């Protein structure tokens, strides 16, 4: 009885969380005139998706988002891994460097948006995916460094000691032992960085143009003077959360996996 009650409570909580997402998905599948009806599925159509790609150039936006999010992680990851390792093992820069890394995450992005815009306009990096990638890499770097530092700290130092007495250099121990052992953490950090870039709106809006608009910017632009095109928005949102759902599945798998699985007792 107790179990049944707690399950009932949990089911209710899940419904509360998941219902809006399901309703958005439902709205993306019904004709625009049915968007606000209370019927669950009056008729099913893919017209909203078709319109999004045919009329709104959503494919371009989607591709932009993917390019920028993936590239920013690829650029950041080696730097974040090495910095995080240095922080974790050698206490490079001491407490101050750690604090500065964390502090950079506390600045409101708006404070950086205008100076970045001025700087990038001078460099000709506005309205370019390169510019956006650089910004996202810069935003990701301290965040991923912080996360990876935690993962590296959890790896027993003896592993490197073993590798180094076995004949590896410090770099060799990092490359052949620490990195493979930290792989789950690096994957998880990469996915988090991807999500961060994928969802970013402010810089994409300020630095981007029509060709370089990312998914969040494109979705915002569906809010027109003729009202919100809710069926298109619903279709866009449904597509936008797709990579996040895949990422969430990934990250769960890697975060659950132990870090030093069986290397030390």
């Amino acid at each position: 009885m107790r179990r049944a009650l707690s399950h009932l409570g949990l089911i209710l909580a899940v419904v509360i969380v998941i219902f809006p997402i399901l309703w958005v998905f439902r709205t993306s599948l019904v004709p625009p005139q049915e968007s606000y009806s209370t019927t669950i599925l009056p008729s099913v159509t893919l017209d909203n998706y078709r319109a999004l790609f045919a009329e709104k150039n959503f494919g371009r936006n989607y591709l932009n988002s993917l390019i920028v999010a993936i590239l920013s992680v690829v650029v950041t990851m080696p730097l974040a891994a090495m910095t995080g390792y240095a922080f974790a093992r050698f206490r490079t820069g001491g407490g101050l460097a750690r604090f500065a890394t964390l502090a950079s995450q506390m600045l409101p992005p708006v404070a950086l948006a205008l100076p970045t815009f001025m700087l990038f306009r001078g460099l000709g990096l506005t309205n370019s995916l390169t510019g956006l990638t650089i910004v996202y890499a810069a935003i990701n770097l301290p965040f991923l460094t912080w996360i990876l530092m935690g993962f590296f700290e959890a790896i027993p130092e003896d592993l490197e000691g073993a590798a180094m007495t076995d004949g590896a250099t410090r770099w060799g121990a990092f490359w052949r032992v620490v990195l493979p052992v930290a792989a789950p953490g690096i994957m998880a950090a990469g996915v988090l960085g991807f999500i961060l870039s994928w969802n970013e709106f402010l810089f994409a809006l300020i630095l981007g143009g029509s060709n370089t608009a990312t998914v969040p910017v494109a979705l915002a632009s569906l809010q027109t003077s003729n009202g919100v095109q809710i069926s298109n928005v619903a279709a866009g949102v449904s597509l936008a959360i797709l990579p996040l759902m895949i990422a969430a599945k990934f990250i769960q798998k890697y975060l659950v996996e132990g870090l030093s699985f069986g290397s030390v007792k």
Partner: protein
Amino acid sequence: MSEIKLNKISRDYGQGIFGVHDVSLEIETGEFMVLLGPSGCGKSTTLRMIAGLEETTSGEISIAGRDVTRLAPRERNVAVVFQSYALYPHMSVRENMRFGMKMRKTPLDEQDARIARAAEVLGLQPYLDRKPAALSGGQRQRVALGRAIVREPDVFLMDEPLSNLDAKLRGEMRQELVRLHRRVGKTTVFVTHDHVEAMTMGDRICIMRNGCIEQVGAPLEVYARPRNTFVAQFLAAPAMNLVPATLTAAAGAVTLSAGPIVGPLPAREAALYAPAAGRALLFGLRAEDILTQPRPGAQPFSAVVTALEALGPENLIVVEAEGQALSARVDRHFLPRIGAEVTLHADLAHMHLFDAASGDALARET
């Protein structure tokens, strides 16, 4: 030849804090040297300094006649077995063993031959393709040993390798390690806080405290003649009984007064310790030298039993007399009631005397 020489090595953490202070020690080729001491005594730090994993702030370390003080760990040709085993979790048992040889560019067929040999010696053949996570603690321990053996290093360094095993396995591995050492014959430094491991495994043991060496010697020699109260108490469980004592010399006889134990010393001890008459001393007697039956030279005393541990092959009892608690290792059939008064006999032929202030043993010839 692969002797290890430590010449006044120190590890200074700054602000006057030393992990290891001015330690000098010579370990001969093929010797099994045990570094023994309580946690924080610097034994692991010493081992890590030999391995090159810990910086040596002053002094010199040489291995096989070569000064390695400033060399990287990989240039010292030592193999370390860690307490945590530190197996590479992403590699199979075979790859774990291969790693060091790969780093040293050992020919591939030689690698395979050595892995096969080590696997046979250690009984690891069925597990060669498993990952460490799929092994038991004892098996991981063997892999860690195997990884060290296949490297064929000059020196084996083992940092409490048995402390994560259960008691039965620890006993087996102890014997196996000794057998392995005889077979391989390599200079070995073995760190432990377990006096049983030290006594049973070491050719010599080196007892450390607060970053310094207290005594070095063959196990039985150190056991029989501890240099001070620290060594005396650390090298046995229960620890050596210590009782404040004085000696009185009168008319050619020397009388001991140590709590409940009062009586004349046997002739040999009397001659030896007579000069210490009148000084503040500590009388030391090991638990097995408190007897239940009289013996020539043993001084009877009565005491009240306060605790009894029946271990099976023998019993440990704690008795109290004149405010002094004494432990005794007695026959398994000797089972007094708690609170009972018993007569015991202190075997003065095996007594020790220490200076009460410094804790140093009074000079004693063979």
